[in-house]
Each structure stands twice: as C-alpha cells, then as structure tokens.
C-alpha cells in the first residue's frame, strides 16, 4: 500500500514538532569557542607578521647567530665548564696549556679547529654585512647652496606695470594726434603728461638712474648718449658710436657693457625706447653719427 499525501504531511508535522537534539547552550558554547579561537589565530598571525618585519627579523637572526657562535665557542673549548671557578694562577696555567695545545694541533695539522674558526669567521663576516642593513637610516643631505651665480635685479612687477601703462598711455595719443607716421615717430612722446607720470619719474630713488623728465623723454636718444658719455662708455669727441642689444646682452661700440651698468641701461632703454632687454628674443641696434663730412672715424 502506498503512502498517502496526508500521511506524508503527518510525518513532516512530526519533524517540525521534534525537539532539537543540539540545545542552544551547547551551540552557543561551540560558537563562542570558535570565535575566540579565530580571533586568537588572527592576533597570532598579526603578531607573527609584525615579528617578521625586516628589521626585527634581522635583529633576531643576529641574536640567533651570536648565540650559536657562543655555543660553538663554548663547545670547542676543552674545559669550558671549569673556567669560572679557576684561580688566576690556574687560569694562567690553563691558558698556557691551551696555547700549547693549539700549537700542537697546528703542528699535527688538526683541521677541526681550523674549520670551526673558518665557520666563525664566515658568521662574523655575514654579521658585518647584515647589521649595517638593519641599522640603515635615511641620510640627511644638506641642501646645496648655489655657487657662482650672478643674480641680476629685475624690475619688480609694479615697476614693469607702471612702465607699460605709461607707454600704452602715450602711444595711442601719438596715433590719434599725428597725421603721418613719420611725424608720429618724431614726436612719439606727447607733450601732455599727467601729474601721476611726473610723480612716478620723480619718485625714483636710484641715484645712479637719471631723472627722466619731460625733456629727457622727449629726446630719448640724446638722453641715452648723455648717459653713455657721463658713464664714460663712449668718448664725447667721437662722432660715431653704436649700441646694440642681442640675446639680453648690451654692447656699446661692439664692447660688452660692464655688468655694473647693465641694469641701469636696461631700464633706461625700456623707459626711453620701450626696448625690453630682458627678453631673449629682442633685438635692437642703433648707430649715431653727428659729425661733419670726412670727420667720422671708421
């Protein structure tokens, strides 16, 4: 006779109502023990990993090697255990005996001690290699100071800005007021100056730098020539002279301008002729001849 669905349901009902064999307390205990074991295992693993970090490992290996060395030395000594209790006289005798024994060993060609010595030497050599690595610390290298560099003072941002503003304020005036290009070139500086501009030029504190007034700005080449004569860079009697700028270098009559004048003339050229000497690409050349015919040298 086959089993009916109801009978099967009855069996399942029995299974549902059955009391658990493993009680809650037993399961809880097993669970807690397992969690403690696992957390203990994790801790042990962590500590082992921490223990075997490079430095610690090397330190431990050093200690182990040292201990092994001590043990080997102790074992290789024939009367190692009695050394501590011996009197000075006995120790001397003992040392003599040992010395004699070593001599005897060497004489008879005993290789055991030699082998021990060699192995100890190897261990010591190994230690000599290992310990510096363990004690390796980052070296502190002092920052090198620049040597042999010449710091050239550049005009500050404010100065550059003021100069630029000044030039921009003047050039448009020239364009609007002048009827032709040549006229503009001849009179590129306007006669009308604002009070602010006057103040700007009057406020220059550098004594070596000329006070560029209305007159000087109007005749920039003349001003430049006067300054060159004043600084004895050109001879006043010489009717022709030449000045050029190329790759940030200023030359007067093909001679390089002395460094002491560099900053002054760079600024002067910028102010008077709007030539930026500090620009590596700027190129400017000026030849002046104001002499009579056949009076010019070269």
């Amino acid at each position, binding site marked *: 006779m*086959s089993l009916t669905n109801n009978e099967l349901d009855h069996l399942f009902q029995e299974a549902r109502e059955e009391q658990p*064999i493993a009680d809650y307390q037993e399961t809880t205990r*097993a*669970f807690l023990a397992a*969690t403690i074991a696992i957390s203990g295992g994790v801790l042990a693993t962590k500590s082992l990993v921490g223990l075997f970090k490079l430095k610690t490992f090397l330190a431990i290996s050093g200690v182990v090697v040292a201990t092994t060395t001590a043990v080997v030395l102790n074992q290789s000594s024939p009367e190692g255990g009695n050394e501590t209790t011996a009197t000075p006289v006995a120790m001397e005798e003992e040392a003599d005996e040992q010395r004699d024994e070593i001599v005897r060993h060497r004489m008879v060609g005993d290789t055991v001690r030699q082998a021990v010595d060699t192995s100890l030497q190897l261990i010591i050599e190994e230690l000599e290699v290992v310990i510096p690595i363990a004690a390796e610390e980052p070296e502190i290298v002092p920052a090198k100071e620049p040597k042999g560099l010449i710091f050239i003072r550049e005009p500050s941002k404010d100065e550059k800005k003021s100069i630029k503003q000044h030039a921009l304020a003047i050039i448009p005036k020239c364009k609007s007021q002048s009827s032709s290009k040549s006229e503009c070139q001849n009179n590129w500086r306007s006669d009308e100056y604002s009070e602010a501009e006057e103040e700007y030029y009057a406020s220059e504190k550098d004594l070596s730098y000329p006070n560029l007034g209305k007159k000087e700005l109007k005749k920039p080449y003349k001003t430049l020539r006067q300054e060159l004569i004043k600084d004895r860079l050109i001879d006043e009697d010489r009717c022709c002279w030449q000045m050029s700028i190329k790759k940030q270098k200023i030359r007067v009559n093909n001679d390089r301008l002395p460094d002491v004048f560099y900053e002054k003339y760079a600024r002067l050229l910028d102010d008077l002729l709007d030539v930026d000497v500090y620009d590596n690409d700027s190129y400017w050349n000026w030849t002046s001849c104001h002499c009579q015919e056949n009076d010019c040298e070269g």
Partner: protein
Amino acid sequence: MTNKQKEFLKLYEPVHADFERFCRARVFGDMDFRDLMNETLMKAFEKFDTLRSKEAFLHFLFGISVRVLANNHRKKKAVVGTFEAISPKLEDTNANTESKTEVHFLHKALAELPEVQREAIILFEITGFSIKEIAVLQESSETSVKQRLRRGRLKLRAILTFNSSDGQSEPNTGGKTL
C-alpha cells in the same frame, strides 16, 4: 563577550530550533549536523555587518548554510563521486535514541533525494519557508521550486512505501498504515 557576539546570539536564540532541524534533516547520513551549524554560524558572524534586517536573520543563516553545503558537495564530487551513488552506504551519524522513529525514517528517505529537491522540501515542509523565499535561496524560479517540491514528495512517498513493504524497516506512523 563582545557587543557583536551578544547581538548575534540574541538574534540566534529564537531561531535556534528551526535552524537545528534544518541542518539535521539536510545533512542526514552525510555529516554531523553540528559541524554544519558551527560553520554556518561562524560565517554568519563574519558577515553579520552585512545583515540588513534583523527579521531576515533565519533567512540569512539558511542562505549561508545552503552555500556552505553547495561548496562542500562541489569539493566532495571531485573525490568520491555523486552523493546519490554513495548515500545508500552511509550510516546515520546523527542517530539519537530520543529521536522519534518516524522522523528518523523521514530523514533517511530525504537523504536519498537529489540535493536541490531535498533542500526545497526541508525548507518548505520542515522549516516553513515560502516558495518565493526558497526560490531566492536556491537562485531559481518559483516554478522550478514547485516542480522540485512535487517531484520530491512523489519520490519520498515511493521511498517510504518501498521501505515499509520491504519489511526491512517499519516506520512508526502513529498507527497509520504507510
């Protein structure tokens, strides 16, 4: 005991009986159900932080135990072959004199079913899970679960009938004829 352990055990206590029954029925003749319980609990404790709802704790436990068993069987298959092939030779490692005889035979019959059918029937009939929940646990459709339940029941009836008519074992069904 840490707070996490306390909270975990607080949730586990009310579902212990259901969980124990499931484990016992599920691994009958295969392994000690206590091992499965412990392994499941450990894994559940590890992943306890991922539990979204406390009400779903039993579902959470069953999900883990189902995966644990699936992994165990996958490993076992490679070594000893299919569970069906070896199941008749296995002895009941969870034998308990206090256990009722009919439940013992039911578990024995359940052990002869294919894995997924067995699991579906235990979850549905013994643990009281819905078909939808079983479908989620077994990662299959509800129709598949229904089919498994139907076929599983038919097989169970056949196994239990054969056993009773064979005379080798006579399950006590409370006076009813099997």
